[in-house]
């Protein structure tokens, strides 16, 4: 998967996320603390609501519509109404930029 320069690290607040659209798909890029970043699909697997307005707390993203919860490290759904895992993608920080590896 090609590495993509998605944004500056400082574009994302700690314990927060931003939306990132690329190649006709939409993703969510998360920052926990310092340079710890993660990337998942952007849409909740429950009803395809974008996670960008959700709450990040203790490595969990909570969907803004129905409070479906996913582990941002693994994509694991953590209980109803989220029953299907989120896809995750490698993410890292290089020289203050967030690099994500997404499908071509």
């Amino acid at each position, binding site marked *: 998967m090609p590495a993509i320069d998605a944004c500056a690290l400082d574009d994302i607040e700690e314990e927060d996320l931003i939306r990132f659209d690329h190649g006709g798909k939409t993703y969510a890029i998360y920052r926990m603390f310092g340079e710890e970043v993660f990337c998942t699909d952007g849409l909740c697997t429950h*009803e395809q609501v974008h996670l960008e307005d959700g*709450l990040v707390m203790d490595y969990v993203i909570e969907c*803004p*519509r*129905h*409070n479906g*919860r996913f582990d941002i490290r693994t994509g694991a759904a953590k209980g*109803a*109404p989220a029953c299907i895992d989120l896809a995750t993608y490698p993410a890292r920080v290089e020289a203050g930029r967030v690099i994500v590896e997404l499908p071509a």
Partner: protein
Amino acid sequence: MALLDLIKFPTERDYSLTGPEAQRAIDNGLAGAEWYRTPIDRKTMKALMRRSDGPALRDTALWFALLALTAAGGVAFWGSWWAVPFFLAYGVLYGSAADSRWHECGHRTAFKTVWMNDVVYQIASFMMMRNPVVWRWSHTRHHTDTIIVGRDPEISGMRPPQLIVIGLNLFGLVSAPQSFAALARNAMGRLSPEEADFVPESERPKAYWIARAHMAIYAATLAACLAMGSILPAMLIGLPRLYGTWLLLVLGLPQHLGLAEDVLDHRLNARTVLMNPVLRFLYWNMNYHMEHHMYPMVPYHALPRLHEAVKHDCPPPSPSLYAAWREIVPCVLRQLRDPHHFIRPQLPEGAGAARQSPPLAAE
């Protein structure tokens, strides 16, 4: 169900989830649609969504303490009139206040700690005679398609409102037997067609097992009644869902009653009612109902702050419960003659444009 039909007013529209209105809602773009939300900047929103265990721990400890005290008083004075006020209070704490605990913990926003939400959710679901799995999915649909006819399983005020049923339900005389029958059905490993419409296959075994657990507790309560030759055990477990549920209807029906159907804007189909601190404790701030629907991520204890953040864009709240019912009663009485009548809240000047459904917008 046929017996129930004898006391229901006929409705023009089919409010079931399996009738023609379900397809109509989908065809009209009302199912799973994008809803209006008052814009709030991300920093403010994050502060409003922030979770905490403190307020819910305090309120839950107080709730359990009041339940224990009133139950103890009821038991101690059982057989005398002095038991009545204790059971009146116990019933409301059980059959009315449990609803808001069920609701907030169902969203998993009341506590920061997830298991605390889940424990209180299970207890409150039992008290309200609700299958916690089925009702979680029911409420999920209610949030996706709020008061969309044919989609929302939690529309309590149809047009015309079923006033006889609502009156009987002040003491749970229709809703509790229905809930109990649903639990019995689930315990036998079956869902109704309506339940099957919103509970995914993967969740159904859990729904069946929890229903069996609930039925076992009711069976044990019945056995205790028989062994003691007294209804006292049932006065503590089960019957409060009848004799204590009246306040829930008084507080809860104003959430949506008399307001629009089939709109994509909670400012038009949900009502916020200002209440005193005692009622807000019993109701866990669910009186800020429009705000809750707009931003269900916000925990109950932050809803007053959310109200302040969005009120410039929303209809004025009902200043009191009395004012809300003064608005509702004439409306529902008129709906008996004219089911097309409903209340159209006035948005303040400068508010975001109302998001009407296509048929309403064309009126």
